[in-house]
């Protein structure tokens, strides 16, 4: 549980004739992590793909082309297709369906490109319609140049002033302003053409070539519009046809694609193993606990000709090369997500999942600490788990984490802080006995919940800080302890360092308790840890320093010098970062207080200002505002609590013992989403 699954390095050796069966069995077992074979020599070579690989790849190619053409990537199939049906029907279906689909798609493309084409023409015609000349007037001249198109700036005056007055009757200019540009048609003598083109170009001229037709542009445009309308209808029918194909074959095509992907993967497995002319050797890892099962299963299908041998590698080699498979009790498994986000532990390391499973919900719950938000989080977690989690393992696990975190938040909210949706159950008094925020509470709005708060977020801030520091001591001591275990067989010097840090941490913690005395809770903590030594105090300019705490820290510093000699100075400076780690845990109090204060302030504003007047419209507005503000607090609070609880694990905790970087255990195997091996 604490360490990743123990692995055994095994070799599977047998005749080539049995290779197919063995691969098939290994894929079904989902237990064997192949170590890729790479050192070829004249006798031992990398295997060749099984024969069926090429046929299956071709099927796969066609299937994928059809799936892309039909846009089935986001298709939600309504049934799982049995493998027997896939193997029976695929070839026959591909033979008929492929041409049909490709035909339909091609048709569709043709229609839509024809529509695009007509639309461009239509746009040209609407420009010519603005100019108002019949289409035949743009062409068929010998000595006249024609310009037609659009310009960004007006050009008529520019041209008229640029040409000789003698040429004025040798040119005809039509210029009509439109929304963003000008429609222009110019007819002139050929000699003037170059000069005019120059002026046009400087005005942002875009030529538009009129179609070779006769008659009014408006009529032609209407004809095109009619044609486009008809084509649109055809396109719709084509789409319907494609939709029918999607519905009818979607589930089958996705299932077939999945099945043949698996088959190709199986068929290409020999590329990862060593073969000679007549035999094969597979080298890899199997969980030690499943070794017998694997051996038995292979024996059952392949008989005595294939042998499975435990290679019994050395402890060092096992530690350095074995793949990592996490192994945790069921409720802790969702939290493996956090470990994977960071990086898998090394094979020899401790798997911290179980500790994250215990600590994360506690921290998260303390920071939220509200019955209402906790209940909402549980609901949100359940929705994530059941709805979003259907297709995604990540969402499923995150949903469970939120559910567990929400449970603790509700628990703390109900029994410790006694508040829901930022509103305390009963009026809160500060330590002078005065009402906080006019006694705003559930009781004040008429709902009496018979629970008494043990701690008020807005009053007992120092107690919350003390709880945070206590959490810091427990959590980091655990981290250092795990660090000691991790390093013990690896590097004794590092392991000793962890012990020294444990001593210093205890010293810092005791000194903080000395300084924090005051309330019942803090005095209780103080007596529990420093009770016997409470008399040993030296005063230093008003600050009480515990002799025992000082002695512990000094002992740690001596330890540094013994271990490191002169370079101990660097380690001594690190004491400051350990202290900052401790203070870092006070974010538990900080977020709890900040979120609680924000929610209470919003409640106060709405209840006292919007509801007090008694105006029904303002009250309705008040309800809407209240819901929006509550959503804001809920979203911000949950997000920051989640990230901060995670950070305390990642930074303050993990960095005390965790290396990470283990190789993932990836056994031969597959998961079917669309196809199924059982008959339906």
């Amino acid at each position, binding site marked *: 549980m604490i360490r990743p699954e123990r692995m055994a390095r095994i070799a599977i050796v047998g005749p080539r004739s049995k290779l197919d069966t063995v691969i098939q069995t290994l894929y079904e077992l989902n237990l064997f992590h192949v170590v890729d074979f790479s050192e070829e020599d004249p006798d031992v070579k990398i295997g060749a793909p099984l024969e069926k690989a090429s046929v299956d790849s071709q099927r796969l190619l066609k299937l994928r082309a059809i799936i892309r053409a039909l846009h089935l990537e986001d298709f939600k199939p309504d049934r799982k297709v049995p493998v027997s049906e896939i193997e029976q029907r695929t070839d026959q279906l591909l033979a008929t369906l492929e041409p049909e689909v490709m035909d339909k798609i091609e048709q569709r493309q043709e229609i839509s490109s024809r529509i695009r084409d007509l639309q461009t023409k239509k746009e040209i015609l609407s420009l010519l319609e603005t100019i108002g000349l019949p289409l035949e007037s743009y062409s068929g001249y010998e000595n006249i140049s024609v310009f037609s198109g659009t310009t960004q700036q007006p050009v008529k005056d520019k041209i008229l002033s640029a040409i000789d007055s003698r040429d004025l009757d040798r040119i005809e200019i039509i210029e009509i302003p439109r929304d963003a540009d000008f429609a222009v048609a110019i007819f002139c003598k050929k000699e003037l053409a170059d000069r005019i083109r120059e002026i046009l170009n400087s005005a942002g001229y875009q030529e538009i070539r009129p179609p070779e037709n006769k008659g009014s542009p408006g009529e032609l445009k209407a004809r095109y519009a009619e044609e486009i309308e008809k084509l649109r209808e055809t396109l719709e029918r084509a789409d319907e046809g494609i939709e029918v194909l999607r519905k009818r074959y979607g589930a089958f095509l996705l299932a077939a694609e999945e099945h043949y992907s698996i088959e190709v993967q199986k068929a290409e497995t020999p590329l990862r193993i060593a073969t000679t002319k007549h035999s094969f050797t597979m080298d890899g890892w199997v969980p030690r606990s499943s070794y017998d099962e694997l051996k038995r299963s292979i024996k059952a299908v392949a008989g005595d000709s294939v042998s499975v041998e435990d290679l019994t590698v050395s402890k060092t080699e096992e530690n350095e090369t074995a793949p990592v498979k996490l192994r945790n009790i069921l409720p802790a498994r969702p939290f493996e997500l956090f470990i994977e986000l*960071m990086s898998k532990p090394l094979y020899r390391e401790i798997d911290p999942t179980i500790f994250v499973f215990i600590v994360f919900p506690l921290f998260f719950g303390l920071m939220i600490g509200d019955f209402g938000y906790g209940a909402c989080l549980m609901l949100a977690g359940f929705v994530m788990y059941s709805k979003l989690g259907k297709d995604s393992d990540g969402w499923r696990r995150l949903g469970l984490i939120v559910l567990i975190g929400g449970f603790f938040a509700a628990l703390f909210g109900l029994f410790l802080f006694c508040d829901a949706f930022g509103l305390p159950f009963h009026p809160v008094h500060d330590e002078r006995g005065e009402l906080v925020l006019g006694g705003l509470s559930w009781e004040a709005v008429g709902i009496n919940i018979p629970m008494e708060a043990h701690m008020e977020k807005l009053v007992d801030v*120092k107690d919350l800080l003390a709880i945070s520091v206590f959490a810091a001591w427990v959590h980091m001591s655990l981290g250092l302890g795990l660090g000691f275990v991790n390093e013990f067989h690896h590097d004794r010097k590092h392991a000793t360092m962890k012990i020294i840090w444990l001593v210093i941490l205890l010293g810092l913690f005791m000194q903080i308790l000395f300084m924090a005395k005051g309330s019942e809770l803090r005095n209780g903590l103080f007596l529990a840890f420093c009770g016997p030594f409470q008399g040993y105090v030296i005063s230093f300019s008003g600050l009480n320093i515990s002799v025992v705490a000082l002695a512990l820290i000094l002992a740690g510093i001596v330890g540094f010098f013994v271990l490191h000699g002169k370079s101990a100075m660097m380690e001594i400076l690190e004491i400051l970062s350990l202290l900052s780690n401790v203070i870092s845990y006070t974010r538990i109090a900080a977020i709890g207080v900040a979120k609680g204060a924000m929610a209470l302030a919003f409640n106060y504003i709405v209840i006292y200002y919007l509801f007090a007047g008694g105006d029904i419209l303002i009250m309705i507005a008040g309800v809407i505002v209240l819901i929006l503000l509550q959503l804001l607090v809920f979203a911000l609070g949950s997000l920051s609590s989640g990230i901060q609880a995670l950070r305390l694990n990642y930074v303050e905790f993990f960095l005390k013992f965790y290396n990470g970087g283990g190789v993932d255990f990836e056994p031969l195997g597959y998961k079917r989403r669309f196809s199924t091996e059982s008959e339906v």
Partner: protein
Amino acid sequence: MDPGLIAIGAGLAIGLAGIGTGIAQQGAGAAAVGATAEDPKMFGKGIIFMALPETIVIFGFVIAILLYAGMGGFAGD
């Protein structure tokens, strides 16, 4: 000392610490998002680097609370 001045001090402590954290996080955050976009496995390390400067604002918070308590904000003690 005038409790008003102490309260201003407490406000400055957390406010300035917040600005400091913000400045530190803008660089780390941008880099972390970039690294995660390139390789999703960087997410965990990204969170660490992103969250490191947050300790600064926590220091501010602790000092602010201590000042507030010293001013008699929670009374009692």
